[in-house]
């Protein structure tokens, strides 16, 4: 693991406080800096302002849903790697996510090790 990875800044846009908290706890264990936004609008603002190495984005968000938010950022030229999280594994979401420019996709309930592996892969591929 590189030093840069250990310093990685991760934005988690997730409205469920329990999920947000477990993500924060789990990712902080790896030494990553985690910031939480709990709706689409504040998530968009944080994403625009901050310089993040990766964005973990829930699909079902109040304000603006994750797929629309991702598409919006991509349209503005933002290339930050995006990991979509959803509690729905319907293909429609996966396809919509890919179209919106998401780089990876995990279905809840995900396995912690899978989450770590996915984030490491996205960080390495930047």
């Amino acid at each position: 693991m590189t030093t840069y990875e250990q310093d990685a800044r991760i934005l988690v846009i997730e409205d469920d406080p329990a999920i947000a908290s477990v993500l924060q706890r789990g990712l902080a264990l790896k030494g990553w800096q985690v910031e939480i936004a709990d709706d689409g609008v504040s998530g968009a603002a944080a994403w625009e302002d901050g310089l993040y190495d990766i964005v973990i984005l829930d699909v079902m968000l109040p304000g603006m849903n994750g797929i629309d938010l991702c598409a919006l950022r991509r349209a503005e030229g933002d290339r930050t790697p995006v990991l979509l999280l959803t509690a729905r594994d319907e293909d429609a979401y996966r396809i919509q996510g890919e179209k919106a420019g998401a780089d990876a996709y995990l279905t809840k309930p995900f396995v912690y090790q899978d989450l770590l592996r996915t984030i490491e892969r996205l960080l390495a591929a930047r």
Partner: protein
Amino acid sequence: MERAVIRPPRPPRAQPWRIIVLAVGGLLAAIVVAGAAMLAITLNVGAVTDRALHNDIVLEDEADDLRVAVLDVRHFQRNVFFGGPSRTGLQEFESAYLRLLERIDSLRSVQIAAAGVAQPDDLLRMAEAYYAEIRPGMDLYVTDRPGFDRAHEAGLARLVELDRAAQAIDRQGEAQASAALRDVEQANDTATLILVMVIAGASTAGLALAWAALRVLGELRVLSAQQQEGRIRLEAALRTKTEFIADASHELRTPLTVLRGNAEVGLALPSAGECGHEDILREIVREAARMSHLVEDLLFLARSDAGQAALEVRETALEPWLADVAARAEILTRERGARLEPELRATTNGRIDPERLEQAVLALVDNAAKFSPAGGAVRLSSRTDGQRLWIAVSDHGPGIPAADLPLIFERFHRGDKTRARRSGGAGLGLSIARTIVEAHDGQISARNHSGGGTEVTIELPLVPPAAVSAGRTPGPPPTSDTATRAGASAGIQVR
């Protein structure tokens, strides 16, 4: 959430169609009766009219002719009386008398059915008696003028009698004619009455028919409205169910993510090994995984019931696919403390949904491993004949009681409840396997080996008919409520 109240539809009343049958039958019967009555009436009225015409024309005419003949005879007798018995006068008288006899004879062809009326024979006797008296009397004109006069007077008296007899026949004719006309009138009255009754009957039947038709139309309207209402309710219920599935998916997965995630993060903490926390956390992870599995199974069945679980059928090389399935089955059996014995013989391609079919096979393998003794062999075998694919999973477990064999593919069915609970699983694996196999137009069956253990076999066409059509036209999106084209019984769409 809208509460769907299912009201049983009101069954249609059976009465209207009975009334229709009765009314149509009645109408037909009325037509037959009316036809028969009209025919009988026509024949009867015709006969009565004929009889009346016969009596009126023939009898009256004959009587009139007879009276003319009597007057003729009287006329020529008087000519002889005033002009003397000349040769011409006598010839004319004789001719008139012969005509009278002819007229009397002619009366024989007419039936004079009445007492007190002279019959032709009586008239003949009267005529002959007249002639016997007058004709010799005429010869006395020169020799015995008083005798001639007496014969003349007596002859006139006999002619008056004949004329009266003829008048009586004439009256009889008139009487018979009027009686026949009365018969005609009566027959007409009867015919009118029968016709009125028939028309009344037919009208009643027609009214009943119209009423029944209105009733039937009313019932049909009610049924149509009920059907429409039912369809709307069903659509609403399906929408509600679809939304519920989506909501349940989200609501169940989120807490499971938190539960499992926290336990896994806990395990990753440096202090995890202290005070036995690691074992506790591992158990939480294991149970959360089991619960996730159950949630996925339930969602799969709910989606397939709602016609939302889609098969993605594609051309698949069976050999590498089976090798992959066997590799996963190997891990699964090892985790269960059993060992896999693969015996895979299928080298062709097939149009299948590889992920779903793998899910079905692994459900069978998992089930077999669960009931295998420690270290027991689970045999995974496959073969094709170019048209169909067979995949069989057999174990050396205790077998399935004969009574349970037909039930093992039912949802939540678990033969030995205690053992099943201990081994985990809610009894959905085989049911899901059946749902997937049936969506491939295949069959799944189970049998016990004679030497112990069970074999479950999947048999499916390599090119299911629905998959052929699915290959030609793109399928509906997963959210569409388009009717399923295949696996309709299983509720899975083929895409």
